[in-house]
């Protein structure tokens, strides 16, 4: 059963074995507005937890997307480059950014579950 986790930088992870699929949350896409551009990492690149891995731009803002766990990029969702609007319409589905092979699954313990994230964003406004 795939596990879902969230970060306080508004990223979600869908975990399948030792690979996590990563995107930004629906809350994040709403804050950003219409997404116009994404810059995705190259497969094979290694990141530490917290490193800047991708950039997402809307008309009025730009935001870094951080690697939520340490690991190596497996795949990037290149379709987003042609159709960034998917991030707005389906942020937590087709709008995924990249998949990353985790080197330390223990890092997941530091992240929030769905309920925890809901509380987190409720506290923000």
């Amino acid at each position, binding site marked *: 059963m795939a596990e879902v986790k969230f970060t306080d930088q508004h990223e979600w992870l869908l975990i399948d074995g030792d690979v996590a699929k990563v995107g930004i949350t629906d809350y994040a896409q709403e804050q950003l507005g219409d997404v*116009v*551009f994404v*810059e995705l990492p190259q497969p094979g690149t290694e990141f530490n937890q917290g490193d800047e891995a991708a950039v997402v731009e809307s*008309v*009025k*803002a*730009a935001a870094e997307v951080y690697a939520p766990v340490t690991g190596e990029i497996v795949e990037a969702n290149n379709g987003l480059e042609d159709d960034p609007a998917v991030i707005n319409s389906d942020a937590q589905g087709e709008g995924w950014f990249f998949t990353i092979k985790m080197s330390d699954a223990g890092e997941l313990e530091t992240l929030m579950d769905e309920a925890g994230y809901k509380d987190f964003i409720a506290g923000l406004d």
Partner: protein
Amino acid sequence: MRYLPLTDADRQAMLAEIGVAAIEDLYKDVPADALLDAPVDLPSHKGEWEVERIIGDLAAKNLGASSVPSFIGAGNYRHHIPASADHLIQRSEFLTSYTPYQPEVSQGTLQALFEFQTQVSLITGMEVANASLYDGATACAEAAMMACRVTKRSKMILSGGLHPHYIDVTATNAKYLDLNVINAGVDPNRDEPAHLAGLVDEETACVIIQNPDLFGRVRDLSALADACHEAGALLVVIVNEIVSLGALKSPGEMGADIVAAEGQSLGNGLSFGGPHLGLLATKEKFLRQMPGRLAGETTDVDGKRGWVLTLSTREQHIRREKATSNICTNSGLCALAFSIHLALLGETGFTKLARLNNANAVLLADKLDAISGVEVINDTFFNEFTVRLSKPAEPVIETLAANRILGGVPLSRFYPKNDAVTDLCLVTATELTREEDMDALSSALSEALA
């Protein structure tokens, strides 16, 4: 005072409405000992004619280049600006408007910028251009840093044939960043493109070369472009006499990746060196690393075509320390003047103007070369060339100036300690150079070198 509409009665009424007794109450946050209780020690206000007299007196102490035979170029060029250009830029709606942040009330500025961007792309042979930078030298620096961002490398190779101010500004901008600036050194005798091609390696972000170069030489840069691309480096081409693009192959055609240029020659007078106009043009694939503002086409809610500032996420007001540059205010009105002038010239006018500049320079070069003690060292040139004199050039130029002829720029003005260039002088002709001016320069030079 003529610019202050409030009357004392207004001020009293307003203070009362605010609920304070005096203006000083509104300055209560200023530390008491820092709040001045009297005007600063400078003259008090003056009417228009007094101001005109003071400034007129300062102007009278100068020798204006439009009033005497003038052959000075070296990065700023004296050209004819059509009367309607200067008239149009003084329209209130252009002169006193601001950056087009609210596009619904700025379509004039935005349409003009879109036209400007198109013109710059066309003459440079590049895919996209921005809405202006401060000047050619800072555009050169921005292009260098852009190349480093694009290639993720830090070594930039600067041709010695670059305008020395451009070299200095680029080096200054790179000074506190982790970048490696290689100055290939000034050498008027060297095959510069071949020399630079030999310096390019896998660590090079860019090679920056000027065409025509400091000495006025014109080259085909295609081979250098190939050498750069083979090593994964970018070719940055600098143009500081923009009229040359009417007669030369465009940098884009020659394989340039980025073009940084000075646009002053069109629409903008000399004005003692500023304000001028930086141009930046590049390939679409580098667009997101491009500094400066961009006007883009779109439609409004009624489906009508219009323009907006776009891709602002590259810029400082959104990206802050991660911006492509810190630039905010640029050279809007100078860009408009350029655009209007080029619109007035059109294809036939621009190309003819360029041919006229080159032809006048050829006539002048032949005339000067015939003088004993003067040798034109260029095989190729556009409207500016270098002469070698039989004496140090700077005192000769001073003598000419005392005789009300502005003869050119001695290279020692840029390189005061370089003995190899002491006898060299840059000389320019434009469409404004008349035969009698050329004759005046000829006789004055002959006399000075006798």
